[in-house]
């Protein structure tokens, strides 16, 4: 389904941001990243914006927050991510 999962909920700032950046750097075509987080990753947003990623932050089932991230230029990833976004 093109999903990569990353749980950073047991890490203290700023490790989650570093792990997400590392995971996004190896994201394959058609893939989106689902990040499980205990807080909203405000430190991450400017980096995502700068590097051409779109994201959607929503309530998680396992952790307080879930962030779905995909590359804006990747149509397949955009479509795959759209299927898991909560309204």
């Amino acid at each position, binding site marked *: 389904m093109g999903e990569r999962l990353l749980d950073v909920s047991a890490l*203290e700032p*700023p490790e989650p941001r570093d792990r997400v950046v590392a995971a996004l750097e190896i994201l394959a075509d058609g893939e989106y990243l689902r990040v499980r987080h205990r807080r909203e990753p405000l430190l991450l947003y*400017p980096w995502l914006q700068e590097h051409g990623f*779109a994201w959607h932050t929503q309530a998680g089932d396992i952790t307080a*927050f879930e962030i779905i991230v995909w590359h*804006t230029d990747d149509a397949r990833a955009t479509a795959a991510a759209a299927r898991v976004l*909560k309204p």
Partner: protein
Amino acid sequence: MAHRRCPSDGGRGAGPETVSGIGLRLDQAPPFSVPLRFFLAAPFFGAIAAVVVLAIGPEILASRWQPALLAVTHLLTLGVLTMVMLGALMQMLPVLAGSPVPRPVTVAGVVHGLLVVGTIALAVSFPIPYTGLRNAALIALGGGLGVFIAAAASSLVRASANASITAMRLALLGLTIVALLGLYAASTAARARWSYNPAYADVHLAWGLVGWVALLVIGVAYQVVPMFQLTRAYPQWLRRALVPTLFAALVLWSGVTVIGSSPAWLAQAAAAIIAAALALYAIATLWLQTTRRRRLPDATVRFWTLAMLSLLACVVLWSAHAVGMVADARFAVLAGALMILGFAGSAIIGMLYKIVPFLAWLHLQALGTSTLPNMKEFLPDAYTLPHVWLHAAALVLLVPAVLAPRPWLYPAAVVLLVSFLWLGWNLTAAVRQYRRSAIPVNV
């Protein structure tokens, strides 16, 4: 739960906006030099306080009015605690409240400079009661704290309320009250009156240690304990009720104490509420620490454990003294020392060990530094974990130092001196790492 989402067309997300109840506006963070100048000054004042204790010796504890003891107390409360707390607020207000302190670099420079000069002048003016020196202290401290209070108030009135902002607002009121009482105390007429009736000094002390220091530590803890110690959040009822209850009880206790004609039980009831609320906060924090998701050794967690145990010990001692179980005045001094060095001192050192590397990292990231050092490279565990034991030893030594100052005061002061020097070394080590990785910080 509120959601934040990027534009529905699948485009890029917009700039930072808040969804999680506490809006962290990182784009509003002031330059690193703003908080750092306060943080780096604190160990210096702590070390000076320890040196004064060593120079004067056991006579310093002859009475609570001993000029050198008053000097040491104010070197610690103004030079260490208030110094760090003002720097932390300069950093946190724009980020937490989303409304920047106006002209942060200028305000920080003026407030810091006046606080440094005023604290030194005040400390010297206790043993050397030269009018010019005291007036210099009054002007510098009144000016510095006044500028800070005005700047912080202008930020806080615009902030949207949450438990931390409420605590900061009430703590700022507490700072205003303790500062006004302190300035008044420095006038000749007031000094005579305070010497005659120590209740006035007790009110000044209570607003300083509880109304200012404890309220702010509690308000900041609501944010930094869950965030950096990876605990659960403080229970919502506690966040809502604790600080307003403490503040109201403090107002009641102060009024009854100053008026003096009210029934004694009213003051005792208010004091009991303050003691119970502080104990509840300490127990809640210790309990939260048991919910940590990561069990690795962490200096900040251990410093905060020390802080909460010290607060509990202080509450027990102070309560026992207040109800006459221990009549010896030395126990009240010990309670004060545990509050200043044990509770607030440990909490502040623990917070600095997290916040300084984090801010260094944050500013390097904002500068676009290609290879970001991780947090432990700024301040390795090998530097911070042994400091916990050293500071704990200083706190343990406080007990015999106050109860049997000859000879115990000397080892206690030496360990405390080394503890503050160690803090200074560690903080400058983190700044050196920052400088190696980026452009220099102008402090």
